């Protein structure tokens, strides 16, 4: 969760100080090349009347089929002795004009249909989209052929045919986006602000749809030029003496074997034109697509990159199952470095449950995901520290060793049980797969074991439920399956990242008590990530409170709740309403946490702290021991009543 929050931040920042879209486009070599070539072609085509060219339509039978580089005809002449260069430039003009017009027509009508169908919905949508489906039910070019057949061959008729055939493409794309936008709350909000439907459709929705229309246009225009050229090639588009690139190619085909240049040159021109449009269109798409900008389409590798600048020494004695020292995890996004985790120490002993608590962006989830290398790279990397699982430093192991440990020695339970289970495989398949990844046994044996696991997590009818797909189970049942999966190979450590946050209260209570019972039965150690002090109280023995990527206080659950020593912990407890104490005044924490790419010197909480002193704002604030298992990162900790000055 906090990983996503961090990834979302640079997008915010970029919007204010980002390089302009044009700069981004130019930085993309391929797109820039496309733009340059395309501009050149368009300029030459526009300048055709001004250039010293031979008349493209004047025939000169005496000069027929001159080869290229002939003295008067750089690109030679065609079968009727017409200058190919001149015809090429004039033909390009026609092809471009037809392609652009067809795109504009298709984009206008298609987008209009899509917008109306998506926004109005119901019967109108049904009717419009059934019509669109009918058009889509024809193989692409076939409908264009039928239309040209009826209207008769000709360039304008070909243009209409191609435009009509492409309308569904726009309509479906735009409709999909519009439906998504229409369900967004800002549309309801606009309605409650008194805006009319027309006003909402064109004032609120259209501005959000426009980038998609532009992307769709930039990706289809090349295609439309190809298709109109195709119709002309077949003799169904431009009619002599008018010529576009397609008809030139079509005429040249008859003399392919004797004078190949007559057909190869216009074909090459079509290819270069369409290629430059496609290169440029891809660049436009990359600039306008927010997913690409935020890196949402880059593929995370199997394990977080480890680039440690410092490696702490192994502890002399091993009193914990998992011992994390000075862990630092960073995200590098757009040249900025976000120190999501800035030096975290954690000790997890056998059989205990340690709660890591913090708000979004505090680095709690990133800490948990760093341990087994599950932080997505790019953009994440482990920049320092070590994590010892018994005697192995997890950040120094080979990828294969990490794979062996994942799911066996250390297993995970994640937040949303619907998205964490594979939607296309049965629960049974996913469980047996987890078992067989680490234990050599037959499939039948593994299935038997999977049923036992479901029984362990109190799922009634386990053998039956193995055949169920995740979407057929309720949220609580799915989370039980995830827990069963975590228990499949007798893990020593379970890392649970907000495992109950997505669940209803009554289900959450069940899952928490199940985890409590299982912990007693199996004696595993649990690292439990949450934002809720109530949940922590229900399950954790000890707590570590995180703020801006560091642990600010640790101790047993009782002690911290009764006597928080860090002002942040105190304020965090006080700002939550507590059931049974409705009269209590909520003590809000003013301000916002610092952004982790620009942390202040000294205490990160200083700006929001009511007890702040001058010395809080300089130097490193160490984590000070306050007794066994109790530490606080504050130089003026609270002691029961008021600040200790």
């Amino acid at each position, binding site marked *: 969760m906090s990983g996503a929050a961090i990834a979302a931040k640079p*997008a*915010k920042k970029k*919007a*204010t100080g980002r390089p302009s879209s044009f700069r981004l486009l130019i930085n993309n070599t391929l797109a820039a090349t496309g733009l340059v070539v395309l501009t050149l072609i368009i300029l030459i085509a526009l300048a055709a009347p001004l250039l010293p060219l031979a008349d493209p339509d004047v025939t000169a039978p005496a000069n027929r089929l001159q080869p290229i580089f002939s003295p008067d005809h750089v690109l030679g002449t065609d079968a009727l002795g017409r200058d190919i260069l001149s015809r090429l430039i004039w033909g390009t003009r026609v092809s471009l004009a037809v392609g652009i017009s067809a795109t504009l027509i298709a984009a206008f009508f298609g987008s209009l249909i899509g917008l109306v169908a998506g926004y109005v919905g119901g019967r109108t949508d049904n009717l419009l989209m059934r019509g669109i489906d009918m058009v889509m039910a024809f193989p692409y070019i076939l409908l264009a052929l039928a239309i040209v057949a009826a209207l008769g061959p000709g360039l304008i008729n070909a243009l209409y045919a191609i435009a009509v055939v492409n309308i569904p493409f726009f309509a479906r794309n735009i409709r999909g986006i519009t439906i998504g936008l229409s369900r*967004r*709350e*800002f549309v*309801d*909000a*606009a*309605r*409650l*602000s*008194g*805006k*009319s439907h027309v006003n909402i459709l064109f004032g*609120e929705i259209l*501005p*959000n749809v426009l980038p998609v229309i532009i992307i769709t246009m930039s990706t289809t225009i090349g295609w439309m030029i190809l298709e109109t050229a195709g119709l002309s090639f077949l003799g169904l588009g431009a009619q002599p003496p008018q010529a576009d690139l397609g008809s030139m190619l079509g005429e040249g085909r008859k003399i392919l074997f004797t004078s190949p240049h007559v057909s190869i040159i216009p074909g090459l021109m079509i290819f270069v034109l369409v290629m430059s449009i496609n290169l440029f269109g891809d660049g436009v798409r990359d600039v306008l697509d927010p997913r690409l900008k935020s890196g949402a389409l880059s593929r995370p590798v199997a394990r977080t990159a480890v680039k440690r600048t410092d490696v702490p020494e192994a502890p002399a004695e091993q009193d914990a199952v998992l011992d994390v020292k000075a862990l630092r995890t960073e995200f590098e996004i757009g040249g900025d470095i976000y120190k999501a985790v800035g030096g975290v120490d954690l000790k997890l002993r056998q059989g205990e449950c340690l709660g890591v608590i913090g*708000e*979004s962006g505090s680095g709690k989830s990133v800490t948990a995901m760093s341990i087994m290398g599950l932080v997505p790279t790019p953009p994440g990397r482990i920049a320092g520290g070590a994590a010892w699982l018994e005697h192995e430093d997890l950040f120094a192991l080979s990828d294969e060793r990490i794979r062996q440990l994942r799911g066996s020695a250390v297993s995970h339970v994640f937040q949303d049980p619907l998205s964490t289970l594979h939607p296309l495989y049965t629960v049974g398949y996913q469980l047996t797969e987890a078992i067989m990844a680490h234990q050599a046994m037959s499939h039948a044996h593994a299935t038997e074991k999977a049923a036992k696991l479901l029984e362990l997590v*109190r799922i*009634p009818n386990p053998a039956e439920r193995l055949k169920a797909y995740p979407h057929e189970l*309720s949220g*609580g049942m799915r989370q039980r399956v995830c827990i069963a999966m975590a228990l499949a190979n007798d893990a020593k450590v379970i890392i649970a990242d907000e495992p109950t946050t997505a669940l*209803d*209260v*009554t*289900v*959450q*209570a*069940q899952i*928490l*008590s199940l985890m409590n019972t299982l912990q007693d039965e199996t004696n595993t150690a649990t690292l439990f990530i949450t*934002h*809720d*002090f*109530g*949940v*922590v*109280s*229900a399950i954790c023995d000890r707590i570590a409170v995180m703020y801006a990527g560091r642990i600010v206080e640790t101790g047993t659950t009782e002690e911290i*709740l*009764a006597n928080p020593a860090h002002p942040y912990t105190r*304020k*965090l*407890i006080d*700002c*939550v*309403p*507590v*059931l*049974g104490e*409705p009269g209590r005044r*909520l*003590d*809000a*924490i*003013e301000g*916002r946490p610092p952004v982790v790419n620009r942390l202040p010197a000294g205490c990160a909480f200083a700006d929001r702290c009511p007890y702040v002193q001058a010395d809080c704002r300089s130097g490193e604030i160490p984590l000070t021991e306050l007794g066994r298992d109790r530490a606080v990162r504050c130089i003026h900790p609270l002691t029961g009543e008021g600040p200790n000055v």
Partner: protein
Amino acid sequence: MSEEALLAIENAERIFGGGRTLFGTQLPAVHAVQDITIDVRKGETLGVVGESGCGKSTLARLIVGLDRPTGGAITFDGRDLVADAASDPRALARKVQYVFQDPVSSLNPRKTIRSILEAPLIHLLGMNKTQRAERLTELMDAVNLAPEFLDRYPHEFSGGQAQRIGIARALAADPELIVLDEPVSALDVSVQAQVLNILDDLKARFGLTYVFISHDLSVVESVSDRVAVMYFGRLAEVGPAKSVFAAPRHPYTHLLLNSAPAPGKRSLVPEDANTELPDPYNPPPGCAFYARCPRGTDECLAARPPLLAAASDPLHRAACYHPHEKTSAR
């Protein structure tokens, strides 16, 4: 009681789907909200609490006219709200407003805060430019935001700030009733308190009436005068917040309160039985909570229990044949 009610809901029902296909086969229907009868009095905060899928958000949309009930009546200040929503939605929007759950998705990413906040002033109140400028300053002040923010875009704001803008927009047309649909559940706890305090402040300052919808029992308890507990599209229990939280009568309310985690509460006592909601396409004839209820009898299976007042407290009603009487939940 109904005479002083600002908002009166009577037997409201909202069914999704249903109807028939071209060939006359019955399409499946979901009863999102059924048989809801409840009043909201001027100046009070009615808390509506329930788990996901209980129909609380549907109820909220019915109240602001974003959705229409398929049965029953809703009156606001003595006028038929459902008819008004159809004939003159702007008149209704001047009196009843809405604060959305997701502060980010409720602001159009391509509009400045100024144009978002001006929309209700133009379309609902028909203000001119100077009036609007004056009102915008007032609004930003009311939600404790600097006026410089007016020319920024929504993505430049944190969740808490965005939610305050959402509140300012609801406030713009100077409504009498504001429906708050999970206004703080998307926010971090430290920001949650800021927003709750502002809401409290505004209510006192402008004499507002709130319908506050949430799944979080402790939040509802801290803001509400009266509370309605919903289960499977119906009211399970209604009463003054103090009595409902101190002495819940419906077994479902008991379960909710026992399940809710609280700092310092070690053991949550969960039920062992299944937690599956009944099939919404095929609701049971009796009490929907029967399958999960420790007190269920054959009576509960046969017919739906009516919402009846307690002998000791006529304002505290529960839809249960075997309600808890004057015992503590904890």
